[in-house]
Structure formats: structure tokens, C-alpha cells
């Protein structure tokens, strides 16, 4: 066996790849991130808002982008693709082909002079072709790396040998026309494929897309909606830039269609994004008429159904259940005509200003072919094949997959899988964890206590970016006149390596103990300068940055004198603050290396195993006698695995795992402490025991709702899905006698009292119905449904069920099926949705797809201070980007306790939760940030306002002396937002780095 390598290659640069890379890099592995484009970000970077909460996509993503860009253990390889993978699990050789950038990434400072001068305009992919960019470009302003690229297809110099303007204006001589494509090999231990999807191209569809600019894809519309898009978020009809009055969305374009596009699967996300887009469009213009044409409304995720209901019932978005035949416009008129058949069967013609095609997801053909060539099995639709119980493992050992390459999915599911893939990729090489990851060298920091402030001010020209407008030398001269300023100078580029070295030298020579750089944005450059301070032996918090570029020279070009005034003012304000800066310490707190997993169902077991695979000790507590949870009651997965059998094997393996202590019939009595240092009181075998642990995974699961409707418990032929599973599992002879079986969907779900969709019941019903058909092909089977929600490739089960003769009849909430006892059989009456005629089915079996409800969550919620939603499901830290985390540090979430989900997704989430836990455990210590709140207890009144407003449970009221009854802040939990400080009436709370005194000093000098 070859030697294992402690690094991982992550292919792709979208949110999945980012999450996987961060998880791995934070747990002690070196990560190569290989991205095809010039910068990372993927499709999420193009989105305006994200459903169902309408968060700004870029806002929530950009901190992650920056984190990747700065991570010491992530190496970004952009403009690159995998050519081949040789070797085996633990030791792969990956051949990489990297295209030339023609810009020296080390020299480029991202000033944009090249793009400004570049004469060649081309279609801007980031804006879905709706705007132009230059041939010298960064894909978008927040791009990571923020390094320019010459587009060789369009650059005049590279195509025709002329021009060369960019090279003449580049201040750092970064342009290199001689750059060449490269091939090289990377030696890694594991590989994760997160290559994402391509949006379906609707050119050949009968929707007038090719002919009219007013028919746009959803991605194009996303750019239209986006504030950073070509129309600054002002939605216009592209043909004449008029404001639209009516917009239509056509669903399933490039999905659920084996005829015109050949994509039989459901793309999983389009229903929600169409709703989101319609809501946002209506926000822009409340008078806008929005209509969504759809087949089945697939709002199956957490908060989705509520969002759908809100759009429909409160915001007036119209929903038309019809797939339209075609779209056309008449001659020279801009309006797009859609013909459809209304719900009551009337052929209708309606004109819209804009038609949005909700295009589905496809896997790039090239990616498909390469994957196949590397021995990675794909489904017929070109997605990466995985198995239920190993949801992110590809067919090739040691290579994992996450995101849309596995199946069409949304961001949270992608992030979950990224965690799962990272967990597995790391577990394969956990013995060599830390062998390749680099560690930050701890510099020697000078003690400045007792010293009077000696401030150094460095004012940057940024070439002509600042210097062209602001009188930089004058600002530097002015700085010298300010109190406490010991030294001031101007630099051409403060961020250049030589300037950094010079600053460090000056700090030493002049014995500076506070540093101010007046240059660009602290959001991008503060860490860089802080490193310079560290190199010079200064605490990094003794730094203040003044943004005289983005906030000054760039936006006040025409008033250079006033811009200079502003720069002086801002420098004066910074000097006032800097004089009050204190060195801040980042306290280290050791993390108990043991994990507690609460719940012994599939999710809990998978989490426990995942943690043990990484070498951590785990205690798994289960309240029942037996492990397995709901899985014990099920029969078969969509892929045909016998669930109880696999579950039993999982349980057996776990019991045998020496890293895992399984305690059944156990209840949790109490939990104290916080991240890294929890103490849980366990009660079992008639005794109580205190377990110390550093992290906890909450996997308390859910159960089947016990229906009160449809004669359940009144007639033994009426079963729930799980009850039918039992009969199937036990080969119950009564099933052989069934001539007609009926399934009713949404029993207890999507009702006013339980508005969410239970997500898995449609698929469950398909599997059960197909099994019945397999056992007895002549059996008549009817499924009474509201919307079929067999998302992604589960759609093929729906198709197969139809093909095999299962008949689907849709009902609505106002006309639910009626069940009664007939003379011999059960009689089920329902109105056929096409014929609008009542029909009666005489059945021998009625299976109710009953809702999934969460198990009791109150206690856990109290113990860990984690929130629960109206329906009793736990609320994750962030719907999109932290779906398996809690906002309480050190506590993680998986399985049905989060939301109903099928087994593969539960396992993925369990592994993702474990992955998050591993990143914490692997760091062994939590370094608190310097920027945290603290309490001056003498001033504290103990009113608890701070406790109330903090979402992270950082403040608490001291229970013991000294200062009993006064507040204290746990710096480990504090994120430094300052909400508590602003809420404190008595002046007891302070925020280091942004203290009231410091800010008031700035105000005073403004």
C-alpha cells in the first residue's frame, strides 16, 4: 500500500467546494482548490438573493470567499481543470491543466488600471451576457482572488499582436503576454468533486428565447434583479428598457421532459427560485403582475412551503398550474404571448412583458466524459452516482462528490454534502492529518504597556488611484501635525512587498506602537497590514485603517481638494481612535476532545461513526433500548437497500467500535458549559453520570404523525406509510389479496396547522407503490396527491410508477378525498383533476403518507440554548450556509430534528455536522478574537439586556461571587458585534477595538 498523503484536492470553486475546502483546511489538511474560472464563487456569486429568506447572496458568501483566499492551508489554482486522476485512495496523482492568466498573480494588486484602459469589450459571463466586460477583467468586484486576467480569445494583443495598452498602464508590471498554459501533477490523499452544474440552454425550446430579448433565463433574470447587475436591480424589458407590468415564469424548462430536452429529472431548485424572483420583483414594484406556470409546486424544503403560501396568499403572486405549449410575440410588438389551458380547462391567451424561463441544471458534457474516463460512474442523466448510505462517495474509492454534480440541489443541501464529502475525504487520511498543513508562526510581540502612543501614519498613493485625486503628500504632512503622531510618510503602494518591509523597519526604528494606513478598504487589506505589524513585533490590534480610495478618491474624482480635506479628516479621526487602541489578546481555550451525540437513529449513528473515523472518542446516547430510530420501521430505500438490515449492521458496527460508547435507555438530565467545555448529566441504569465533552451533535430525530383523518384506526385496511412498510417487510399475506391500493399524500402536512412539506413522502410512496406493482403487477394503484415532489432524479421513480400503471389523481385542500366503508371494500371518492368529475375507487388498502413531526425538542433547546421553530424543528445557524450548525458554538445538528429528509440526506447532514465538529476538535484550542465585548462589573446593573440581545449566548449573569448578579461575557462565544454594548444603559459593557470611547473620539474629531 502506498503512503498516505495529507492533502486533498477539491475540484470546483462554488459554494460546495468552498465549504469542503474550508472544513478540510480547518481540520489539518492542505487543500488544493482547482477552479475552472478565473476566480471562485460559482453560481452563488451571481445570485441576487437566496430563498427562502431572501438573504443577499453575495453578502453571505463574501466572508467565505475572503476566508478561502486568505487561508494558509488552501491553495487556489484557478483557470485550471483536472485532466486525469491516477493512484488510489490515500494517494492520488492528479493531472492538472492550467490556462495562462497573462497576469502575474503575485504582482497584480487588483487596481483595475488594465481593465480601465483595455479597449476590447466582450460579453460579461458574470452578468449572463447582459452586460459587457473588458478583455482584461475580474469576473466581479468581490472576486477571490482579486487578480485580473486577460481573456485570450478576446485580448487584441494576444489575438492580433497589437494593442498592449494594459501593460503600459499596469503599475506593477504584472502583465505577461508570454504566459503559457501549464500541465502539472498534484499528489493528494483524497479528491472531492464539486464541479457544479450548467444552466440548461433553452435556445431550441419553443419559448422564443432565441428570437426575443424579453425571454430570459432565470439566471439572466437574477442579474436583472441584482443591485450589482447591469441595470442596478431595476428590472427592465430588455427590448426597449421599459418597465414591465407583467412577468411570467415558465417552470421545468430543461427539466422533467424526455422529449424536447431529454432531461427526465427534476432540477430541484427552480420552483423556489421562481417564487423568490417573483417576490423580489414585486418588492421592486408592488404593482407588478407575476405569474408562475408550473406542473407541481416543489417547495419541499425548510421554510419553502411557507414562502410559497406567502407569495400566493399575501403577496399576490399568481400560480397557474399548466405547462405552456410555446411562447411567441407578434411581429414588432414587444409583448410575449403565452397560451395555456387554465385550471378549469379553458384555453387562454395572455400577454407578458417578460418571460423568465426557469432553466434546469445539467452537467457539463466534458465533465461527464472526464469523470467516466477516471472510473467514476454516472447516472443516465450524467450525475455522479452515489449510494444511500454513502451519499457523497463516488464509485471510485477515495474520491467524493458534493453539490449539483451529484444531483440537482439547492445551496444548503450542497453545503451539507460539502461537509459530508470533507468528512469522508479527511477520514480516509486522518492518520496523516497535519503533516502537510502549515501553521502560523507565532511572532514575538513587544510589550507596550506604559508607553505613550507613538503613531505612525502611512498614506498610500495606490499609483494614481488615490494620488491622482487626493494630495497624498499633503495628507501625510498633515498627519505629522496631529497629536501622538510620531511619524508619517506616503507610499506609492503601501501593500507592495517592499513597502511592507519598509513599514516594518520604520516601526522598529521609530519605536512606533500604533500604526495607521490610509489606503484602500480594511475589508480586503486589513489582514495584510496586521501581518506586517506582527512581523514588526506589534500586536495586530494596534492598527487602524483609513479608506481614502474606495470611499474617497474613487468617488470624489471631480473635487480633489475636498477629497483631500476628507482624507485629512478621516486620518485625524483615525489618529484619535488609534491613540486609544490597546493591544488585545486572543485567549486560547482548550477543547475537550470528546464528542456527545444525542440520538441513536441513522443520523446519530452516522455522526458518531464519522467522529470516530477521525479518531475522536464519542458517547452516543439513545433514549430507547435499541439503536436505529425511525429506520427500524422502514422497509426499502429508493435504490433498493433493505433499511432495517443496513441499520442493524450500522448499530452492530458502532457497538463494536472502541472509540464509541453507546448508551441506550439513557436520558439527558442537564447540560452546562459552552463550546469546548460542556458537562452533560446522563441518566441511565438508574444512575446519573456527568460526561465532559467538547462538542455535541443533536440528532434527536422525528416520528410519523398519527393521523386523525381518513378512517385511520377505524378500519384496519387504512395504514400509514410505515405500517405498510412493516407489512412489506414481513411479507404480510394480506397484501397478496389486495386488488386495489390507494395512497393519499400530504396527510398532516401542508395543512394550516402544520404548513411544511414532509419532503420524503412522495418518494416513499413511489417506492412502496412500485414494490406492490412488482409483487403483484395486476394490482390497481392510485395515488391521490397535491403536488408530486419527487425532486432530482427521484422523478424517475414517479415516471416509473406512471409507466407501470400507477394512476395519479390530484386533489386540493378544499376537496380532500372522502373515505368510507363500502359493502366490501373501502370507497374513496375524489374529484379527478383533469376531468373535474368525481370518481370512486374501491380499494382493499389505503396507505396514508403521513407527516414527519419532530421529537420533543424543548429540553435540548434549553440545555444548549438553541432555538426551535414554530413546528418544533431546531433552527440552524444559517439556512443557507450553516445548515448543520447551531448559532451556539460547539453544537451541531443533523437529521429529522432539523427537518424531514430521506436517509441519504440525513446521513450527509450527520457527516456534515461531524465535519463541523471535527474542525473545532482538530484545532484543539479555540482562539478567541481580540475584538470581543467585556464587562466592567462595577458599572453593571445586572439588567440582562445584553443576555437578551446576544444571539450567541455570550453574556450571562454571574451566579457566583464576586460580582454575583452582574453580567459577564464568555469571550469564546462572543463574535464582537457589539449589540450588547449598544443595549447597555449603564456603560458597563465595552467592545475592544470598537469601544464607545474610541468611536466617540472619532466623532469628536470628525
Amino acid at each position, binding site marked *: 500500500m502506498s503512503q498516505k498523503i495529507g492533502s486533498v484536492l477539491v475540484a470546483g470553486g462554488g459554494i460546495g467546494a468552498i465549504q469542503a475546502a474550508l472544513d478540510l483546511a480547518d481540520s489539518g489538511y492542505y487543500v488544493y482548490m482547482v477552479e475552472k474560472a478565473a476566480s471562485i464563487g460559482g453560481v452563488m456569486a451571481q445570485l441576487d438573493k437566496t430563498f427562502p429568506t431572501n438573504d443577499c447572496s453575495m453578502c453571505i458568501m463574501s466572508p467565505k470567499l475572503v476566508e478561502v483566499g486568505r487561508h494558509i492551508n488552501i491553495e487556489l489554482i484557478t483557470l485550471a481543470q483536472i485532466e486525469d486522476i491516477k493512484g488510489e485512495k490515500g494517494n492520488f496523482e492528479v493531472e492538472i491543466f492550467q490556462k495562462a492568466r497573462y497576469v502575474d498573480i503575485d504582482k497584480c494588486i487588483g487596481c483595475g488600471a488594465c481593465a480601465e484602459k483595455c479597449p476590447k469589450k466582450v460579453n460579461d459571463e458574470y452578468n449572463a451576457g447582459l452586460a459587457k466586460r473588458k478583455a482584461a477583467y475580474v469576473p466581479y468586484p468581490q472576486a477571490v482572488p482579486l487578480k485580473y486576467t486577460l481573456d485570450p480569445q478576446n485580448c487584441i494583443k494576444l489575438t492580433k499582436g497589437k494593442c498592449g495598452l494594459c501593460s503600459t498602464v499596469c503599475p506593477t508590471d504584472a502583465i505577461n503576454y508570454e504566459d503559457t498554459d501549464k500541465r502539472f501533477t498534484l499528489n493528494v490523499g483524497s479528491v472531492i468533486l464539486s464541479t457544479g452544474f450548467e444552466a440548461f440552454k433553452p435556445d431550441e425550446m419553443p419559448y422564443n428565447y432565441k428570437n426575443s430579448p424579453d425571454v430570459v433565463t432565470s439566471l439572466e433574470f437574477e442579474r436583472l434583479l441584482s443591485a450589482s447587475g447591469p441595470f442596478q436591480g431595476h428590472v427592465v424589458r430588455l427590448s426597449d428598457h421599459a418597465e414591465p407590468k407583467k412577468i411570467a415564469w415558465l417552470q421545468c424548462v430543461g427539466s422533467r421532459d424526455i422529449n424536447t430536452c431529454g432531461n427526465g429529472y427534476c432540477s430541484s431548485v427552480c420552483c423556489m427560485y421562481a417564487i423568490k424572483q417573483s417576490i423580489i420583483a414585486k418588492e421592486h414594484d408592488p404593482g407588478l403582475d407575476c405569474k408562475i406556470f408550473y406542473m407541481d409546486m416543489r417547495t419541499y424544503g425548510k421554510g419553502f412551503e411557507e414562502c410559497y403560501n406567502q407569495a400566493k396568499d399575501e403577496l399576490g403572486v399568481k400560480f397557474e398550474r*399548466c405547462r405552456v405549449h410555446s411562447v411567441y410575440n407578434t*411581429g414588432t410588438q414587444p409583448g410575449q404571448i403565452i397560451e395555456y389551458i387554465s385550471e378549469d380547462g379553458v384555453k387562454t391567451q395572455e400577454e407578458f412583458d417578460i418571460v423568465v424561463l426557469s432553466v434546469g441544471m445539467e452537467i457539463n458534457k466534458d465533465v461527464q466524459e472526464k469523470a467516466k474516463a477516471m472510473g467514476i460512474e454516472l447516472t443516465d442523466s450524467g450525475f455522479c452516482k452515489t449510494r444511500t448510505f454513502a451519499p457523497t462517495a463516488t464509485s471510485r474509492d477515495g474520491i467524493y462528490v458534493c453539490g449539483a454534480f451529484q444531483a440537482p440541489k439547492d445551496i444548503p443541501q450542497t453545503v451539507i454534502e460539502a461537509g459530508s464529502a470533507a468528512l469522508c475525504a479527511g477520514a480516509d487520511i486522518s492518520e496523516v492529518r497535519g503533516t502537510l498543513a502549515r501553521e502560523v508562526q507565532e511572532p514575538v510581540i513587544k510589550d507596550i504597556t506604559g508607553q505613550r502612543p507613538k503613531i505612525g501614519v502611512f498614506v498610500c498613493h495606490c499609483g494614481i488611484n488615490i494620488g491622482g485625486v487626493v494630495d497624498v503628500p499633503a495628507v501625510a504632512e498633515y498627519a505629522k501635525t496631529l497629536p501622538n503622531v510620531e511619524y508619517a510618510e506616503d507610499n506609492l503602494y503601501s501593500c507592495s512587498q517592499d513597502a511592507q518591509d519598509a513599514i516594518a523597519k520604520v516601526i522598529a526604528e521609530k519605536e512606533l506602537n500604533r500604526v495607521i494606513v490610509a489606503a484602500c478598504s480594511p475589508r480586503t487589506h486589513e489582514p495584510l497590514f496586521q501581518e506586517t505589524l506582527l512581523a514588526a513585533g506589534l500586536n495586530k490590534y494596534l492598527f487602524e485603517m483609513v479608506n481614502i480610495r474606495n470611499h474617497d478618491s474613487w468617488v470624489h474624482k471631480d473635487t480633489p481638494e475636498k477629497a483631500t480635506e476628507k482624507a485629512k479628516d478621516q486620518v485625524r479621526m483615525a489618529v484619535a481612535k488609534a491613540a486609544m487602541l490597546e493591544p488585545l489578546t486572543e485567549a486560547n481555550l482548550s477543547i475537550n476532545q470528546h464528542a456527545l451525540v444525542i440520538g441513536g437513529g441513522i443520523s446519530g449513528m452516522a455522526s458518531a461513526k464519522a467522529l470516530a473515523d477521525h479518531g475522536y472518542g464519542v458517547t452516543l446516547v439513545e433514549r430507547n433500548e435499541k439503536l436505529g430510530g425511525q429506520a427500524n420501521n422502514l422497509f426499502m430505500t429508493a435504490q433498493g437497500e433493505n433499511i432495517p438490515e443496513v441499520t442493524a449492521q450500522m448499530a452492530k458496527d458502532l457497538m463494536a467500535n472502541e472509540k464509541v460508547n453507546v448508551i441506550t435507555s439513557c436520558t439527558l438530565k442537564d447540560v452546562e458549559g459552552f463550546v469546548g467545555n460542556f458537562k452533560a448529566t446522563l441518566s441511565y441504569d438508574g444512575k446519573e453520570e456527568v460526561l465532559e465533552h467538547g462538542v455535541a451533535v443533536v440528532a434527536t430525530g422525528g416520528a410519523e404523525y398519527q393521523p386523525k383523518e381518513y378512517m385511520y384506526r377505524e378500519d384496519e385496511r387504512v395504514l400509514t406509510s410505515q405500517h405498510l412498510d412493516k407489512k412489506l417487510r414481513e411479507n404480510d399475506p394480506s397484501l397478496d389479496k389486495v386488488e386495489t391500493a390507494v395512497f393519499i399524500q400530504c396527510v398532516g402536512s401542508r395543512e394550516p396547522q402544520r404548513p411544511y412539506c414532509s419532503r420524503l413522502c412522495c418518494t416513499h410512496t413511489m417506492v412502496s407503490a412500485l414494490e406492490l406493482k412488482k409483487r403483484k403487477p395486476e394490482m390497481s394503484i392510485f395515488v391521490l396527491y397535491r403536488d408530486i415532489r419527487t425532486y432530482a432524479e427521484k422523478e424517475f421513480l414517479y415516471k416509473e410508477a*406512471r409507466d407501470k400503471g400507477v394512476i395519479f389523481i390530484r386533489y386540493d385542500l378544499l376537496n380532500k378525498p372522502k373515505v368510507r366503508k363500502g359493502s366490501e371494500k373501502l370507497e374513496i371518492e375524489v*374529484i379527478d383533476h383533469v*376531468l373535474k368529475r368525481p*370518481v*370512486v375507487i374501491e380499494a382493499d388498502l389505503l396507505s396514508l403518507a403521513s407527516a414527519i413531526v419532530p421529537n420533543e425538542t424543548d429540553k435540548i433547546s434549553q440545555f444548549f440554548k438553541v432555538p426551535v421553530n414554530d413546528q418544533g424543528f431546531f433552527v440552524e445557524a444559517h439556512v443557507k450556509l450553516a445548515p448543520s450548525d447551531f448559532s451556539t458554538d460547539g453544537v451541531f445538528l443533523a437529521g429529522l430534528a432539523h427537518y424531514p429528509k430521506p436517509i441519504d440526506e440525513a446521513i450527509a447532514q450527520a457527516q456534515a455536522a461531524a465535519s463541523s465538529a471535527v474542525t473545532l476538535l482538530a484545532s484543539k484550542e479555540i482562539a478567541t478574537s481580540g475584538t470581543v465585548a467585556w464587562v466592567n462589573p462595577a458599572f453593571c446593573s445586572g439588567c440582562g439586556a445584553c443576555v437578551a440581545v446576544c444571539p450567541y449566548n455570550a453574556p450571562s449573569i454571574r451566579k457566583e461571587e464576586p460580582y454575583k448578579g452582574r453580567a459577564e461575557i464568555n469571550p469564546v462565544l462572543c463574535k464582537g458585534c457589539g449589540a450588547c454594548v449598544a443595549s447597555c444603559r449603564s456603560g458597563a459593557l465595552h467592545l475592544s477595538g470598537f469601544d464607545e470611547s474610541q468611536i466617540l473620539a472619532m466623532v469628536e474629531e470628525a
Partner: protein
Amino acid sequence: MGEPAKIRGSSGKLSEMAKAMVPDGNLNACLTCGTCSSGCPATGLMDMDPRKFIRMAVLGMDEELERHDWVWVCTMCKRCYDVCPMSINIPQLIYEVRARWPREERPKGIRASCDMHVQSNGGAMGVPFEDFQFTVEDLVEECREQEGFENLEAPIDKEGAMFALNQNSREPVTEPEELMPLWKILHKAGADWTYYSQMWGGENYCMFLADDESWEMIVRKQVDHLHKLGIKYFVNTECGHSFYAIYGAIRRFNIECNFEFISIIQLYAKWIREGKLQVNSDWNKELGIKFTVQDPCNIIRKSLREEMAEDLRFVVKTVVGEENFVDMTPNGVLNYCCGGGGGSLQAGYNDERREYGKIKFNQIQQTNADYVITPCHNCHAQVEDIGHHFNGKYHTVHLWTIICLAMGILGENERIYLGEDLADFGL
């Protein structure tokens, strides 16, 4: 809503039959998405639409369906099938249901035409070959009297000819002078062509009747005969269903051919491109008469698709001038059937046929065209009929008429479909 119907699952005979007989015929696959009915001009007629039809079959409501008159109103234009996400061949299902009607109860107009065709061994109008031959010979004489056509020929059964022409019997029987423009075009293009004697009529009502046996027999006779003649191209003239009768039969009945089967429109386009047919739109520069064109479903959506639609537009634009051409929307493969297809002109459901045609009529009205060019007999008849019925002001013409008009070779007697504005033009 009435009494609830008891339904059984997957036991409907029609549904089972469709699975066995119709390629793409698993009706169960239907998503009830409504795409078909959204795009179907027959939706709502007789309270039926394609989705409903399939649904009833799926639910086993065979009794109601088997004798539903709607099957004769549907023109099998395939606008539904073209975009059905589950690729369910609804028109073919309609055909199979037509076939399940007792033959004697199928619409008399269609049945009689089929019977006539079979009996006469010629065409649907029952005219024997001899009469056809006489008409042709007689007209050739008349034609040769015109300047420039002294050497015009219209041979029948000429062995080894490059092209064999599939002539709808309507012209020779009811308006023989309409034959001449086509001949002139062929002559001008220098084509080596021939008619043929066996089953000489191009039409095929047996197809509409869903009489597989007769449909196949007619086409096989034609094909066998053409094989004997040794022609290279079998050319369908300006008629949609006659095109599809052969195009479809070759596929449905696996008829082997050693010639290529094409449409005359392809030849028009080819000859114009090659310069063999010298025609332009100068004549209409000042007149500015507006033309639109009807895309026959049978030769466009159902068979030759976009390429054919482009060829057709190329020819029309060349002849009438791009600026004087106004397209209908939608058009090409998405075009609406005029309502004259599928045998509906003979089926006897005239009210429904006209209501169906109302969509086409409105489409034409929207173009404001003076003339509708209909390179199809059924389209021609239907478009003309709905024009009269709904008081349209347009004229309906064959493409050959306009080509000849543009070339300045349209004879005095060859203008029955032209309006007053062009009645004497260029004479």
C-alpha cells in the same frame, strides 16, 4: 358534476391498446401537465381536449371515448406531440381510435374518397388514368401555344426520368388550367420529370380514414411502379397530406424505396439558389402587395421541420419581396394547423372545423396580408373557406401561381385565385 364514476386502474382497453400499437404510446406516462391542450387548436371543441382524451383513456373510460366524434375534429397536426414532455404520441392515438370505429360508421366523405381511390386505382375522385392522361395531353397542347413554352412536355411514365411528380387529382379533375403554372416552372427550370400512371392521384384519404390496409396498398402501388420507372426523386407537389401519406407510410409500413422522396418546395428553393429558376420580386416593388404563408403541418412540423420552413420562406420572399412578406406568429414548426387537415374537410363536422380555423383566421388577419400562400391543398381549401366564412379580405393562392406571376409567365386562365388587383397584372 354528476354521479361519481367508478374507476379501475390500468385496465382500460384503449390505454392497453395504445401501449401496444402506438410508438410513444404509454399514456400512463402522462403528467397531466396541460402542454398538449395549451397548444391544441381543437381544445374545447366538443368539450374535449387532448389531455382529457388521454386522461379518460388512462382512467379506463373507454366507452365514452371509443365513439367520441372529436377524433374526427382533431387534425392530427402533432402540435401536441411535438412538445409533450413525456413524448406521448397523441395524434397517433387518435388515429388508432379512428381505426377502431366500424369502417362503415366513419365519416362518409372520407370513406367514399378512400373507396373511390382504391377502386379507381387512380385518385380519390375516382377518375380513371385514361381521363387524367387525356387532360394532361390536352393541356400540354394548350400550353405549348404560349410564348416560350413551345417545347413544354408533361410526360407520363417516362422511364429513367429524374423526377416523378405526385399530382393531386383536384387540379386535373376540377381546375385543369391550374396544372399549367407548375409545368411552366418545371419547364423553365429544365427539369426532367414525369407523371406516373399507377395510383396517379397524390391524395390519400385512406390515411385519414385510418384504413391502414388501403393506405399502404396505395402507397406500395405507387412505389412499386416508380421502381419500375427507375426515377431518382419522387417529388410531392404543393400538397401537405399527400406528402405525409407517403412520408408516413414509408415509415409506418417499412416500405423500401430506391428513390428519394422530396417536396417540390425544396426543388423551387434549390432551383432559385442555383439560378435555374430566374425569378425575383421586382414586379411587386411598387405594388407592395402583402403576402403571408401558411406552413403546412404535414411537410413542416410533422416531417421536414425547420429546414423546410426556411426553404418555403426563401422561395416566398424571393418571389414577393422580403419587405412584402409578413409572417404569421407562431410559425414554422410551431405553426397552427389551419383546421383543414386530417380529413376534416370531408369529415362533416363543419362547425367545429371552422371554429378550429378561427385561430388561423385571426392569425392571418393580424398579418394584414392581401394574400395567403398555401402550398397545400387542404390548407388552401380551409384557408379559403374560413376567409369566406369569417369575412376575411385576403385571397388564398398556390405558390406556383405567384412564382409564375413573378416570372411573368402566368397565363390568363391560370388566375382563378388571384384578386382583382392582380387579375390582369403582367398580361
